[in-house]
């Protein structure tokens, strides 16, 4: 039992939160609300998985919000203005996003920039490109096939949730069971040792920033589909929320520590808390006050649960 609590401490905190909410509001423990929570958190989850991977290598990715906006805009623009079908538009948008991730990676690996600064620069550049591309205006996408990505359901499960689940599973398998994934931990744990062991640190880093951008691009496209329109201001502040989710889920900002499931738990703690605060009708100002408090408490509880 003790070991169980230690291993799944984050999960227990999440369950405790849910338990508390199911007693304090009748709306919480309804099937509809639970699906709602998962749907709401799917975008954050996808982004956090990507950002979490950069954190594993002792990096960080601040550009995800901008990349999401950029890719959403490109996809929307290609569909609406260039009349490209979604099967062409989406891959092009994703590739555009990944190239921003590649830019991050190149600046970090070959430009020797600290990840914080490199991705901060890309964050600004990505937002600027989005504004230029959209001319600062939202692009509405009426295409029903595209809209389906964000709002459709398959066997009663919302499509964004399915995409999230698929990415989560992939991320888990990648991080826990592939050589490349495991080597990311080595890069974050001790870069020099990893290098001496013949692991290509440069390749690993390039990869994680591209994965992170891919995740952000996916999230941006889902978001655009969900809102039926690409917003040039979308995704502002997403990076901070994603990093917070990863850290809440036990990912270390100094690298080498974290897991896909942990990140998921962090994401759901954030999702459940904001849903719960809404259901409890807390005023938006006090929501912020309480959120700050709950995050810190969650980490503290987690640490005490883990203590041997």
């Amino acid at each position, binding site marked *: 039992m003790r070991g169980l609590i230690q291993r799944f401490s984050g999960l227990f905190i999440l369950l405790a939160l849910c338990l508390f909410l199911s007693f304090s509001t009748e*709306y919480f423990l309804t099937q509809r609300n639970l699906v*709602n929570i998962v*749907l*709401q958190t799917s975008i954050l989850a996808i982004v956090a998985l990507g950002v979490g991977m950069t954190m594993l290598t002792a990096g960080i990715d601040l550009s995800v919000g901008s990349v999401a906006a950029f890719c959403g805009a490109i996809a929307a623009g290609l569909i609406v203005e260039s009349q490209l079908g979604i099967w062409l538009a989406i891959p092009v948008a994703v590739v555009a996003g990944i190239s921003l991730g590649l830019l991050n990676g190149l600046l970090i690996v070959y430009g020797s920039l600290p990840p914080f600064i490199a991705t901060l620069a890309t964050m600004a550049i990505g937002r600027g490109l989005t*504004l230029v591309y959209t001319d600062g*205006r939202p692009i509405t996408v009426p295409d029903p096939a595209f809209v389906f990505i964000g709002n459709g359901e398959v066997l009663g499960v919302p499509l964004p949730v399915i995409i999230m689940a698929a990415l989560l599973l992939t991320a888990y398998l990648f991080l826990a069971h592939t050589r490349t994934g495991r080597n990311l931990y080595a890069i974050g744990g001790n870069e020099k040792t990893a290098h001496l062991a013949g692991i290509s640190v440069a390749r690993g880093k390039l990869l994680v920033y591209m994965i992170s951008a891919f995740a952000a691009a996916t999230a941006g496209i889902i978001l655009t589909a969900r*809102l039926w329109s690409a917003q*040039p201001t979308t*995704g*502002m502040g997403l990076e901070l929320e994603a990093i917070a989710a990863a850290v809440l889920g036990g990912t270390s900002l100094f690298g080498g520590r974290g897991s896909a499931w942990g990140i998921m738990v962090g994401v759901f703690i954030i999702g459940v808390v904001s849903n719960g605060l809404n259901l409890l009708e807390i005023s938006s100002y006090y929501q912020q006050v309480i959120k700050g408090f709950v995050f810190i408490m969650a980490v503290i509880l987690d640490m005490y649960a883990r203590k041997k």
Partner: protein
Amino acid sequence: SVTLGLSLSTLNNPFFVTLKDGAMKAANAAGVKLVVTDSQDNPATEAKNIEDLIIKKVDALLINPTDSSAIAPSVFKANKAGIPVFTVDRSASSGEVVAHIASDNVAGGILAGEFLVQKLSAKGKVVELEGIAGSSAAIDRGKGFNQVMGKNAGITVVAKQTANFNRAEGLRVFENILQAQPEISGVFAHNDEMILGAIQAAQAAGRDSGIVFVGFDAVDDAVNAVKAGQLAATVAQQPAVIGELGVKTAVDFLNGKSVEKNIPVPLSLVTQ
């Protein structure tokens, strides 16, 4: 008892806080409950909040969209759940909306532009302080303003910079513009916060007397500044009235009365 949901685009801006206050007042008067959520200018957060309100089964939704097109899916969701939707201040591009209560941002921009043209006798150099790039308020207000400027050859817009709807940035950005432009006769800002910052910058540089300042929103500080003669004018959208009318309309509708589809709230210019 009746519960109304009010989804606001932001509560970090006095304009919407005033709108909320107006709505609260009307709700108290009508004896209905009002649940307020804050989208923090983020359409994704907005979609979440509205989903949560739908789950709570509010009797009617008053939505102040962060963006007209991004709100559409949420409106459809509410429609599907059988909850009547009212939009305030900003409209929804599609979906079934019972009534829209607002004043027009583009019209407001035109109003401000025309006032400035008249004040400057149709000639001079003006500066435009823009809101958050890509936000709908910035787009619409800028559009109206620039329509007017485009028609007046005597007036040139010499600088056009964003100060993100924020007073401290208004101060900083206008300070810089003052350095670049030895001659400025008028300033229009997409909201009052920025124009109030700009006024402080001009005062500190001793250049406030020659400049006509025009703001937008008519928040309390701006109205006071107009009274004090620092601000020439501000476009009043009467947020409190918008909020009040929104709640009243929704309550009327729930009580079975018929309501107008479009309820305009008149714009006015607050001047000395």
